[in-house]
């Protein structure tokens, strides 16, 4: 293997210096001449018909330049998925949750805008509201959307579950609940719009999805895409919370067009809580195993509390069922999922998009099965692990898979077997594994186009201009792009000028979600750089009279290999090439292979490669208070190849942190239609004092599809953390908490039940009696196709 220069090395992120000196400009840092400030009036009712909006008083307040209602905008609905076009920038007929925007003001300052918002009078006719899954399913009254309160229903059966259960020696059923949580990025969402003569609208936004915002603005404002420029500013934390289109982004654009002045809107922390949240999910799972622990069949049901709008919910619903088979061989698998509308902020993707919930259920469930069978939980998992280069029962193509190694690593490092069931009462260890996508195989709007594109331009000065539509949300995509290009062209980061996420000048990338950027933009950058290298090599080879293949690009030089010490400096080489070919430009694109299986709904789940993680948690439980403290986490992650170990470990640790918060304290519950605690003080997220020691291991399996063999690391490592903690709690005090967050109250309650001789458990008591529709029956891939990996298109 060739030694890398920039790849696999712990170089600081390329934006590190700008960030530590406070020079990065986030959206709210932007100030334009004559800029106005916008505030939204949001509904204070969970569900109501709008009878009348009177903006007269607001308009006459000095300092107010415009007041906008939904009627002032073209009547186009929007939504991130083509199938869920159900949102309005400002509600016209109905409001559907507390926080749903109904009007907006642009004023000379934020205080004036706030005063004006208070002067807008809205008359509502309240409607019955639906706050829970049960409400949505069974309560009478006008539904939230015309289609009814069931937003999406999925029913799929792979193989033959009935026969699978017949083959089982032991069958177990469990019910789990995963409460909603907030993304809570430290940066509050902000957008600035400016409308310039010549019909050119520019919108800067702290968004993870500039391309989708671009498309949506064009649709809702009736402007061609060529007249709109979206610039994603560096994002101060996203985690999925900035991956949708938000009302304020459209509203500032409309207000800028009306007033002719730039307009900024920065959400307050309270408003950020009204944007998106992780879906609260109720789950039922039934698994059949043979005596030796081999899984024969699994039936998984889930209901997602979806909030007021579709958002990514159709995809989320599928995701809740899609990834169980990527870690374990499940020969017969049935998934029934349903997403219901409720009068709460929309559920959307958050780190792990729809998969932490089922992963929690699955890993706790398997732990119980192991206990029932008297089996070692490591062994139970080992028996069922998927093998590399196979296809799952639901047609997902597995390429590299280091799960077995991950499992081995954490079990050994934590000395799991010495501790499990052997530690003093109150202390315990727990285990869980997981897998995740390296980018969704399909785009969210149907097309055959590339998912990521990179453009490189090189000129006689030797500078490389690298442009790509991807936005760095902290995950480090800028660094991956730059280091990839440096590696191939043999240049240094100082030689590269990076331009990202500006729809006027950067080629399209679909956005920073589903862990796709390193994988897809990385591959595109790799291809562009290789093409650029070939171009320059051809010119240099001609000039020096050597074969192009013999040239080595390294250390800002193009050297003749094979023992000769002739070389051109990088700048000279660029000059030679520009003289030969004119402007030096190269592009790279990445389109994932066609991976969808032969059934409706197979678009969610395929990914060009899956990452894997295994985790052991050690906890201490105070039986008098129910307080759980996590003492240490061991986590191993199959990263394919760590393009930059600093960045990868940072993602792994950050995922552990977020998983810890969800496991123990983060709870975005809604009370009487209102988010209970939309504040950073009362929505509890762990501080440095709650963070346990983490020992992380990177397993490199060098994936055939990934750039230099890399896979994702931004989301996957979160998944095993909550179930590992729950399993450790069982090991410590023998109670099962089948519901996250695992609060002291729940632990105490379960302990109390156990003391009374009841089942030592806290969790949901039942699963609503609903009949899912008949499943689409899908035959599993034939064994012969199971091992094949299609070539790249």
């Amino acid at each position, binding site marked *: 293997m060739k030694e890398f220069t920039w790849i696999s090395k712990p170089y600081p992120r390329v934006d590190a*210096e700008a960030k*530590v000196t*406070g*020079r990065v400009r986030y959206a709210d*840092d932007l100030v334009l001449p004559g800029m106005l400030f916008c505030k939204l009036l949001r509904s204070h009712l969970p569900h109501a018909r709008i009878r009348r909006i009177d903006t007269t008083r607001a308009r006459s307040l000095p300092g107010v330049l415009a007041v906008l209602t939904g009627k002032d905008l073209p009547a186009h609905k929007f939504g991130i998925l083509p199938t869920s076009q159900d949102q309005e920038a400002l509600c016209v007929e109905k409001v559907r949750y507390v926080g749903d925007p109904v009007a907006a003001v642009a004023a000379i300052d934020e205080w004036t805008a706030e005063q004006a918002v208070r002067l807008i009078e809205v008359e509502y006719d309240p409607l019955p509201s639906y706050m829970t899954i049960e409400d949505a399913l069974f309560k009478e009254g006008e539904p939230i959307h015309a289609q009814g309160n069931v937003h999406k229903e999925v029913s799929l059966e792979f193989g033959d579950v009935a026969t699978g259960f017949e083959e089982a020696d032991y069958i177990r059923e469990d019910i789990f609940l995963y409460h909603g949580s907030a993304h809570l990025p430290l940066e509050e969402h902000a957008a600035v719009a400016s409308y310039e003569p010549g019909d050119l609208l520019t919108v800067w936004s702290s968004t993870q999805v500039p391309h989708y915002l671009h498309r949506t603005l064009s649709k809702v404002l009736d402007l061609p895409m060529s007249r709109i420029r979206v610039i994603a500013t560096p994002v101060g934390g996203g985690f999925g919370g900035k991956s949708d289109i938000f009302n304020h982004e459209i509203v500032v654009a409309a207000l800028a067009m009306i007033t002719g002045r730039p307009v900024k809107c920065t959400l307050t922390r309270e408003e950020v809580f009204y944007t998106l949240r992780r879906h609260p999910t109720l789950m039922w799972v039934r698994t059949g195993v043979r005596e030796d622990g081999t899984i024969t069949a699994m039936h998984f049901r889930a209901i997602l509390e979806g909030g007021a709008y579709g958002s990514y919910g159709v995809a989320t619903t599928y995701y809740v069922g899609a990834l169980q088979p990527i870690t374990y061989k499940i020969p017969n698998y049935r998934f029934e999922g349903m997403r219901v509308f409720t009068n709460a902020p929309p559920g959307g993707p958050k780190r792990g998009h729809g998969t932490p919930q089922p992963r929690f259920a699955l890993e706790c469930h398997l732990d119980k099965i192991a206990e029932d069978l008297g089996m070692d939980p490591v062994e139970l998992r080992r028996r069922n692990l998927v093998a590399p280069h196979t296809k799952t029962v639901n047609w997902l193509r597995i390429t590299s898979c280091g799960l077995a190694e991950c499992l081995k690593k954490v079990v050994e490092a934590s000395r799991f077997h010495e501790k499990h069931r052997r530690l003093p009462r109150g202390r315990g260890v727990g285990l869980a594994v997981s897998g995740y996508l390296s980018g969704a195989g399909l785009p969210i709007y149907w097309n055959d186009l590339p998912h990521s594109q990179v453009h490189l331009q090189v000129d006689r000065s030797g500078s490389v201009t690298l442009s790509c539509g991807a936005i760095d949300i902290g995950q480090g995509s800028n660094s991956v792009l730059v280091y990839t290009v440096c590696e191939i062209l043999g240049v240094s980061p100082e030689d590269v000028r990076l331009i990202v996420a500006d729809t006027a000048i950067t080629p399209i990338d679909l956005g920073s979600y589903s862990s796709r950027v390193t994988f897809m933009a990385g591959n595109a950058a790799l291809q562009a750089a290789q093409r650029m290298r070939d171009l320059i090599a051809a010119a240099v080879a001609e000039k020096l009279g050597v074969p192009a293949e013999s040239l080595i690009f390294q250390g800002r030089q193009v050297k003749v290999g094979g023992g000769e010490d002739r070389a051109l400096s990088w700048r000279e080489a660029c000059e030679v090439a520009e003289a030969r070919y004119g402007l030096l430009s190269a592009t790279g694109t990445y389109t994932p292979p066609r991976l969808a299986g032969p059934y409706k709904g197979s678009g969610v789940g395929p990914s060009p490669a899956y990452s894997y993680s295994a985790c052991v948690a050690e906890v201490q439980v105070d039986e008098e208070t129910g307080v759980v403290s996590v003492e240490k986490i061991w986590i191993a992650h199959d990263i394919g190849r760590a393009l930059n170990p600093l960045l990868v470990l*940072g993602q792994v640790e950050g995922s552990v*942190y977020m998983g810890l918060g969800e496991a123990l304290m983060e709870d975005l519950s809604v009370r009487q239609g209102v988010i209970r605690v939309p504040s950073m003080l009362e929505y509890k997220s762990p501080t440095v004092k709650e963070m346990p020691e983490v020992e992380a291991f990177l397993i490199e399996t060098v994936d055939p599809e990934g750039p230099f063999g890399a896979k994702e690391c931004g989301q996957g490592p979160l998944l095993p953390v909550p179930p590992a903690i729950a399993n450790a709690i069982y090991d410590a005090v023998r109670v099962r908490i089948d519901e996250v967050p695992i609060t002291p109250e729940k632990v105490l309650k379960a302990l109390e039940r156990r003391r009374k001789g009841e089942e030592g458990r806290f969790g949901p008591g039942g699963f609503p009696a609903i009949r899912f529709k008949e499943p689409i029956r899908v035959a599993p891939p034939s064994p012969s196709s199971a091992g094949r990996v299609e070539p790249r298109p």
Partner: protein
Amino acid sequence: MPRLVRLHVNGQVHEVFTPPHRTLLELLREDLGLTGTKHGCELGECGACTVLVDGRPILACLALAVEVEGAEILTVEGLGRPGNLHPLQEAFMEVGALQCGYCTPGFLLSAKALLDQNPAPSRQEIHEALSGNLCRCTGYLRIVQAVERAAVKAR
């Protein structure tokens, strides 16, 4: 009623006409253009707006600009510049203590106050000093390592 306040920020004196209900956060960001100081709540609940006043970390979102008149204010812009970085800034870069970078200025200043007062802090003392700053990206581990590394460097 706006009044004239004289502020010493990063070694420079600024005179600004400002109404008294303006916070130091607003004044730094909006009047002086020092947008390195961030905000995530404006209520004292996140630590993103941490700056040093006479060497002590405080929250710019809960300080009135008129109340810090005459004091020495340090923001991230005054901590170090490219080419002349503070050891903490270098350490944050080297160990990967930042991701989105939004919490970073606040952490740097909390850490600076600690190291100025206690050049060889224990891990527990570092945790204590950083316990008023939230980060949602890193899980804090690398931030703590960076402070330890900077402490060693500075010695």
